[in-house]
């Protein structure tokens, strides 16, 4: 279907693209799920729309209400678009070390931004948002890290779309942030194909982001259930940038840095399948396009330059 009554109805049903050049062999194949084809250009449109509609159904969101959300960017941009079309105000709590484009886009869609300190990354954004929520009890915090509608969006849409397009799927690889994509699509795929492997790629940021005062300040999203995962890889900016550039030069797909991290994990999984003499159909998520990261320097110069440029940034 390519005709929709409004932009909101066009969320999802993204294409799954084969990658003949990056696939290591004719029997170990990589497939990219292009979530940048969503209305605001990221996978987060699915969760944002689902969380807003769930809150409406539950009577938590009344016309003209203000939504509050801690976000490093994409969820905020998606919520800003949904809020604009549905008549809500949006206040985002965002760490100061995110790309300039994310802030520009949020403002363009009409969101108000409260910044949280760079040190501590999204942990701090969550902490500040919880404080703001106490000061403004009438604001509605959707709280993507613990909102079941986030994972449910992927259980009901992303997972079924993938299985319908590629019934032979053996591995699903996605980024671990709120964990919504992996928990939702992962659970769905597991239920339908018990042998499918669910693989998480977690961004490993620079020192600044881990600048907690003590270990008790650590954070695990309430949605996270490790039994859904087969394994979990930590991927640093160097590998993420290398793969992001490879995806562009070899397959023509212009993706953001977090997608590079996911592709790195997908290629690792592909390599294991090759060594084990198994065939594999590996689906990975392209979270967003590269547009929002042009100013970070991720596409310029050597890998060393890009690694330096991303140090201290929340690049995923």
């Amino acid at each position: 279907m390519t005709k929709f009554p409004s932009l909101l109805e066009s969320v999802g049903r993204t294409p799954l693209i084969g990658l003949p050049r990056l696939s290591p062999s004719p029997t170990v194949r990589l497939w990219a799920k292009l979530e940048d084809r969503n209305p605001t250009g990221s996978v987060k449109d699915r969760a944002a729309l689902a969380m807003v509609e769930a809150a409406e159904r539950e009577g938590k969101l009344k016309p003209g209400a203000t939504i509050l959300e801690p976000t490093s960017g994409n969820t905020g941009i998606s919520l800003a678009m949904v809020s604009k079309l549905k008549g809500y105000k949006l206040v985002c709590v965002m760490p100061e070390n995110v790309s300039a484009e994310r802030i520009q886009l949020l403002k363009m869609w009409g969101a108000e931004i409260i910044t949280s300190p760079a040190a501590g990354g999204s942990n701090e954004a969550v902490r500040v948002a919880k404080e703001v929520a106490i000061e403004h009890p009438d604001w509605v915090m959707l709280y993507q890290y613990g909102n079941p509608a986030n994972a449910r969006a992927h259980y009901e849409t992303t997972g079924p779309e993938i299985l319908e397009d590629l019934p032979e799927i053996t591995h699903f690889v996605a980024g671990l942030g709120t964990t919504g994509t992996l928990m939702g699509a992962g659970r769905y795929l597991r239920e339908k194909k018990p042998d499918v492997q669910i693989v998480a790629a977690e961004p490993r940021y620079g020192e600044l982001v881990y600048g907690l005062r003590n270990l008790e300040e650590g954070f695990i999203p309430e949605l996270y259930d490790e039994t859904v995962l087969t394994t979990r890889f930590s991927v640093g900016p160097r590998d993420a940038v290398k793969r992001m550039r490879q995806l562009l030069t070899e397959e023509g797909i212009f993706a953001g840095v977090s997608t590079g991290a996911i592709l790195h994990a997908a290629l690792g999984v592909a390599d294991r399948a090759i060594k084990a003499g198994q065939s594999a159909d590996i689906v990975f998520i392209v979270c967003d396009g590269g547009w929002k990261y042009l100013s970070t320097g991720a596409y310029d110069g050597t890998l060393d330059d890009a690694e330096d440029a991303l140090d201290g940034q929340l690049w995923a």
Partner: protein
Amino acid sequence: MSITVSLPTILRPYANDQRRVEADGSTLANLIDNLDLTYPGLKSRIVEEGSIRRYVNVYINSEDVRFLNGLDSELSSGDLVDVLPAVAGG
């Protein structure tokens, strides 16, 4: 059998402010015990009641050990162990 262990900022005070330390160990538990001999107090920041602490993630060659064999995960010379606090993404 030397293993390189990378420590987060928050744990460096327990290891003479070093970012990376070297230690021996055939398993992760063994490695952490050996580290604690050189840097007393480090173990209790990583391990609690026989398990890795809730807000600590440990990776062997980038793979989360909770999906390997946890503290019983085997190590080989040249392996890289990363210790990181759990932080939010999204």
